[in-house]
């Protein structure tokens, strides 16, 4: 019999079927399943989550959370004409601060951006920050790509649970129902139910964040050549900024465009979009969606995407128009060239100024 150096256990032995072995197997399974439930049941309290010294997100209490009260206060004071909610697609196009776009247009802009955020965070920002502030902007605009705004697969695994948590109100039935539905729909009907059940039992995002932070802090202590963690985080942020990335790295690209389905109506109706439209209407503003162009081919100046994507974009435009929403699709605009891109869907910093101008020309058509 071979040795089993690559395993943590030994090779199979002669079969034993005694009751003791069966009982031991049962005990082993129970211990493995129960230990995390017992020890990780209580989430670490928020104040125990270390605050990242480097910051990163705009107006953040920490790198991973948003200080909702502070942002609401700023909004009330600024009384902006337009509010942008988005992720890196937005801040690499318009800038992290609204000063340039405000100066260019002569209108008051306000941007609430955080890298890696998706529909759930945008929905909560619209509802719990913009609507809750009582300000009445002419429009709230969001940058989207492909069909991610309404796809049931999107937005569940990438977002920071701490950031989402910081945006949540006490009760978020629409969001919870959407998150559950998304998890179910990302697998088959049967595995979706199992997945949902397991997720309710065995999901410990607070502990995951805390433990991963501890690991990183320890590694910084060990490998940082005496620099403070704050300094190291600043260095990391700067070093892996977009201006240092390789052009062939498809940052933020969706994993699989084949997930494109033709049941647009169904997925749109069951997404968070209808709820977002309702909130926007209630607070007397209009929602404006910019579908950004992915990095195009050098010759055709068009990105590679399934035929169904164009049908979807047409559908979404019509769906939004019926509800006083606005949809711009820059995908087929050949004036945006390959050379404007830093990577998959981020614009080069030196092209930001040009893009702001491009953006405002489109906006002006609707809000002269």
């Amino acid at each position: 019999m071979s040795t089993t150096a690559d395993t943590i256990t030994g090779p199979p032995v002669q079969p034993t079927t005694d009751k003791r072995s069966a009982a031991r197997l049962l005990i082993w399974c129970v211990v493995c399943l129960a230990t995390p439930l017992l020890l990780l049941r209580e989430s670490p309290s928020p104040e125990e989550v270390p605050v990242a010294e480097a910051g990163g997100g705009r107006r953040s209490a920490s790198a991973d959370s948003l200080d909702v009260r502070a942002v609401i206060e700023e909004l009330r004071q600024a009384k902006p004409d337009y509010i942008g909610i988005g992720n890196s697609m937005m801040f690499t196009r318009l800038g992290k601060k609204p000063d340039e776009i405000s100066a260019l247009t002569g209108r008051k802009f306000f941007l609430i951006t955080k890298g890696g955020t998706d529909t759930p965070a945008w929905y909560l920002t619209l509802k719990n920050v913009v609507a809750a502030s009582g300000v009445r902007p002419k429009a709230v605009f969001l940058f989207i790509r492909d069909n991610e705004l309404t796809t049931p697969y999107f937005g569940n695994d990438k977002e920071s649970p701490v950031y989402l948590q910081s945006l949540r109100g006490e009760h978020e039935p629409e969001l919870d129902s959407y998150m559950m539905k998304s998890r179910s729909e990302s697998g088959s009907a049967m595995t979706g139910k199992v997945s949902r059940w397991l997720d309710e039992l065995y999901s410990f995002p607070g502990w995951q964040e805390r433990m991963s932070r501890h690991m990183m802090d320890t590694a910084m202590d060990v490998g940082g050549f005496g620099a403070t963690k704050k300094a190291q985080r600043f260095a990391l942020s700067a070093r892996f900024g977009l201006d240092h990335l390789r052009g062939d790295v498809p940052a933020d690209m969706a994993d699989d465009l084949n997930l494109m389905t033709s049941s647009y109506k169904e997925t749109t109706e069951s997404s968070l979009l209808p709820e977002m439209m309702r909130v926007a209407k209630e607070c007397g503003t209009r929602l404006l969606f910019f579908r950004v162009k992915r990095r195009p081919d050098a010759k055709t100046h068009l990105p590679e995407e399934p035929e169904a994507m164009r049908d979807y974009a047409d559908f979404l435009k019509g769906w939004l128009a019926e509800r006083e929403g606005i949809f711009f699709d820059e995908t087929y605009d050949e004036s945006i060239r390959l050379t404007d891109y830093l990577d998959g869907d981020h614009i080069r910093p030196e092209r930001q100024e040009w893009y702001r101008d491009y953006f405002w020309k489109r906006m002006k058509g609707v809000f002269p």
Partner: protein
Amino acid sequence: MIFQSIDYLVFFVAVFAIYWRLPHKGQHALLLIAGYIFYGYVHPWYCILLGATTLVDFTFTRLMEDRPARKRLWLICILVSNFSILAAFKYFDFFTDNVLAVLHLIGWDAPRPVFEMLLPAGVSFYTFQSCAYALDVYRGQTWARRSLLDYAVYVSFFPQLVAGPIERAGHLLSQFEKPRRFDWSVARDALFLILWGLVKKRVIADTAAVFCNKAFSLSDSTFPIVWAGVLCFCVQIYADFSAYTDIARGSARLLGFDLCQNFNHPWLAQSPADFWRRWHMSLSSWFRDYVFIPLGGSRGTELRVARNLMLTFLLSGLWHGAGWNFVIWGGWWGALLVLWRWLDKWVPGLTQGAGAGRAVLRWGVTMILVNIGWLMFREQSFPDLVRQMLTSPFAAPLDDWRIGGFFAALMLIYSLPLWIHAALQKPLLDQWDRWRDTRAGFALQLAGGAVLSLAFFSLSSRVTSDFIYFQF
């Protein structure tokens, strides 16, 4: 279907629940159906290829015994058929791109033929397994099976279908022919192994992948960041691939099968040859038995042996992927083995001397060579590979050293369980047969299970990816 998904959990529980209630042949029928569902779960057309390979190889190996006069012809039919599938799906783009590049050099720009097909996952694994069977039958080392069902289950056995270990007929196929009984103690070991595999994949490999991708995403990376990235990749690829093997072996054990060993602590290797005796052992032995030895092996002049080694490793590199970086990686290993062999012969004191100091030195040198190889493996763009190879330690700013130090320290921390596993091998795991059913052994396994379970649920990376070897 991927091992770390809920889909696999549900699928496996269903198969397991039915499996042990069925008679011997019924179990095979179930495994066959399960294998095809597993393989065609995302792209059902993959099953056509798998079925075709099975039918062709089964038919021609039977012909080898039924019509032995044309044995060689039947073998050629099998090899041509299997390698045509590999050539079409895996190497077509690589081949046409290179031919077109050469034509371009001589001033002829031919249009690029379009053959947009996804590379079927694991095609290299089951093709090699099936070829091994045919070659063994041809050499008379095993006999041609008369049961299509047994053979089809052997090729499509789902735990090891997509990323090995590449099994031999003498080991796995013979297990299909014997009756199996469920064993509670073995089942406990199997579940432990699966849990260990999941921790390696979701905690270690997936975390290492995040930092590795970061390091390789820079357009202006410097020496410390490049090599910290390589270190991350070294941890990622070992944890990822050995995790797959562990989950495969654990799943197979729950069904009453013992899959062969694929890793033997490669990080402890003290020479390039030692590394390949410990890394992806089922593939190494495949190339040894079906390429290196038929080429002449270690017999003949030193130059002839060097040629055999180089050819074997170049082919091994090409097996891993259709890209020049993989060929270069294979060439690197071939050259190292040749060089080490010569050093062994001419300066034995350098490569074989006893004593802890020399062992540590050999280990250190081997690890450096292994990691240079991983850079070639990971970086698929040739200009970027050259750029990264040429980075100088003296040109890097202090902040980059700090980032490199942080990445390296993080990898050391995350890879601690792998080192502990290696340390426990001799005193505990090699004697596990004696420990398994004792109270102390059970208590140890219980504690280990609880720790692994806690680690899995509190330390898993938020993002996961396919197993690296799926693409091969």
